[in-house]
C-alpha cells in the first residue's frame, strides 16, 4: 500500500537577509495509513514547517515529498487533508455552523449534505447547541474544537494538527486528547499532530517523531507498542513511562531539552 506521507531527503531553506534559515534538513519519514504520528521538539525545529510542506503551504527546496503517492499540490487539490492551525482561525462574521459549512460550501456539497455533516461533526466535538453562536461567544477551547470540526467536516483521510490544544489548560486538554483518540479509532484516519508535551505525544501516538533545531531535522522516530485503546491512567504504566523516557532522551540528544516547555 502507498504510504500516506513519504519524505525523502526533504529539505527546506528560508532565504533571509542575514544568512538563510535551514528549517528542514534531510528529513526521511514514512507515515502509513492509520498512523497517529506526533511531532515533538523545541521551538523553531521545523514542526510547523514540515506540516505546512505536507499541506503544500510551503515548497521544499530539496528532496521529494509524496502524499498518497502524489505531489503535495495534487494532494491538496484532491482535498486529501484537513488542517487544524495553531490558532482556531474561525471567520468572525460566520456562526459556528457556518464556519463548519465553509469547506463544504467551497467543495460544493448540497444543503442537505451540509446540514447532516455539520450536525455529525458538531456532535463529535461536543459542541451541539452552539450552532448559532458567533466565535467570540465561545471559550478558547470551544473555538479550537470548532476548528477541529471544520477540518473533519469534509472527511479527508489525513488530519494535520498543529498544536491544536497548545493554548488549553490541562483538564480540557486531557479530555480533548481522549476524544481525539476515540475519533481516530472510530474513523481510521491518519493523523499528524504537533505538540510540545511529552505525555501528550506518548499518550496519543503510534509513532513519535523527535526533532531538533538548527538545522531542523528528525533525530529519532519512536514506534509505540501501546494498545489502540488507551484509558487516561495508561500514563502511569511502566510501558508508557519507558516510551516517555526515550522521547526525553531523544530531545536531550538534540541538546535542546532545556528549551522544551
Amino acid at each position, binding site marked *: 500500500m502507498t504510504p500516506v506521507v513519504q519524505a525523502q531527503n526533504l529539505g527546506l531553506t528560508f532565504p533571509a537577509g542575514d544568512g538563510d534559515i535551514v528549517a528542514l534538513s534531510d528529513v526521511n519519514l514514512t507515515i502509513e495509513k492509520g498512523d497517529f504520528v506526533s511531532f515533538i521538539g523545541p521551538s523553531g525545529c521545523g514542526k510547523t514547517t514540515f506540516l505546512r510542506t505536507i*499541506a*503544500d*503551504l510551503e515548497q521544499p527546496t530539496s528532496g521529494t515529498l509524496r502524499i498518497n503517492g502524489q505531489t503535495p499540490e495534487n494532494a*491538496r*487539490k484532491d*482535498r486529501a*487533508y*484537513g*488542517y487544524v*492551525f495553531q*490558532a482556531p*482561525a474561525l*471567520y*468572525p*462574521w*460566520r*456562526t459556528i455552523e457556518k464556519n463548519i459549512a*465553509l*469547506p463544504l*460550501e*467551497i*467543495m460544493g456539497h448540497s444543503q442537505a449534505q451540509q446540514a447532516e455533516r455539520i450536525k455529525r461533526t458538531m456532535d463529535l466535538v461536543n459542541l451541539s447547541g452552539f450552532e448559532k453562536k*458567533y466565535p*467570540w461567544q465561545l471559550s478558547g477551547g470551544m473555538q479550537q474544537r470548532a476548528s477541529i470540526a471544520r477540518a473533519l467536516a*469534509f472527511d479527508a483521510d489525513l488530519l494535520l494538527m498543529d498544536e491544536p490544544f497548545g493554548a488549553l489548560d490541562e483538564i480540557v486538554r486531557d479530555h480533548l486528547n481522549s476524544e481525539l483518540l476515540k475519533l481516530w479509532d472510530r474513523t481510521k484516519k491518519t493523523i499528524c499532530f504537533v505538540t510540545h508535551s511529552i505525555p501528550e505525544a506518548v499518550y496519543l501516538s503510534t509513532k513519535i517523531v523527535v526533532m531538533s533545531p538548527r538545522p531542523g531535522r528528525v533525530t529519532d522516530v519512536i514506534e509505540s507498542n501501546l494498545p489502540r485503546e488507551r484509558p487516561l491512567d495508561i500514563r502511569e504504566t511502566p510501558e508508557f513511562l519507558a516510551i516517555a523516557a526515550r522521547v526525553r532522551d531523544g530531545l536531550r540528544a538534540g541538546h535542546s531539552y532545556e528549551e522544551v516547555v
Partner: protein
Amino acid sequence: MNRVIPILTILLAIFVFWYAAAIWMNAPWQSILNGRANLTNVPFLEFAQQTWAQDKPILPAPHQVFSEIWNATMGLEFTSRRSLALHAWITLSATLLGFVLGTGLGVILAVAIIHNDAADRSLMPWIIASQTIPILAIAPMVVVGLGAIGLTGLVPKSLISMYLSFFPVVVGMVKGLRSPEAIQLDLMRTYDANPWQVFWKLRWPAALPMLFASMKVGIAISLIGAVVAELSNAAGGGLGVRLLTGSYNGQTIQIWAALFIAAGLAAVLVAIVGAAEKFVNARNGVRA
C-alpha cells in the same frame, strides 16, 4: 434624560453665543441706520432686537435663519424657483448618483489593485494625484466642458461628486480587502478554493467594516462635490446656486438657510449609511 441634558446645555450655549455675536457684528451697521433716522439713546434691549431684525445682517440671528428655512420650504410650492426644498432635492439627487458611482468605481479599482500588482503600481499614484488637484479648479472645467457638448444638469454634477467620493472608498477597500490574516488565507488554500470563493467568502466580508467607514466619508464629500459643481452653472439650481446668488445679493439669511439645509442633508445621509452599517453588522454577528 442623562443624555438629553448635556445636549440641551450645549445647544443653549450655542444660541446664547450666536445671539450675542449677532448683536456685536450687526451693531456698527445698526448704529449707522439709527444715526440716519436720527434715533439717539436707543435702550440696549431695543437695539439688540434691531440687530436681530436687519434685512441683510452680517450675521443673521437664528430665528431669522429658521423662519427663512420654514418659509422657503413649507411656505412655497415645491416647483417654485425659490423653494429651498426644490434646490435641496436638486443637490441631493446629484449627491446620491455621484455617491453610488463613486462607491462603485472605488470598489472596482480596489479589487483591481489587490488582485494585480501592476494595477497597484500603475493606478495608485494617479488615484492619489487626482485628489491633489483642487476641486474648485476641476469643477468648472468639467461642468462647462460637458455643457459645451450638451450634457448639463445632473450628470456633470454627479461626476464631480463621484470624483471626490471614490477616493476614500478605494483607499479603505484596498486596506479592507487586504485585511484577512495569512492563516485565514492559508485555510482557503487548504480547501483549494478558487479566487472567486476567496473573494466572496473571505476578502469581501472582512472588508465590510472599512467599506462602511469610507462610505460615511464618501457621502459627505459627495454633497460637497455637488454643491461646488452647482457654483459653475447658476441656471441649474441647487443649494450651491442659492449660496452663490445669496452672496451676489448680500442675502446672508438666504446663505445661512442654504448652509443649514446642506449640513442637515449631510447629517441625515451619514446617519443613513450608519444605519445600514448597523444592520449589516447585526447580520454578521459583530459584537455590539
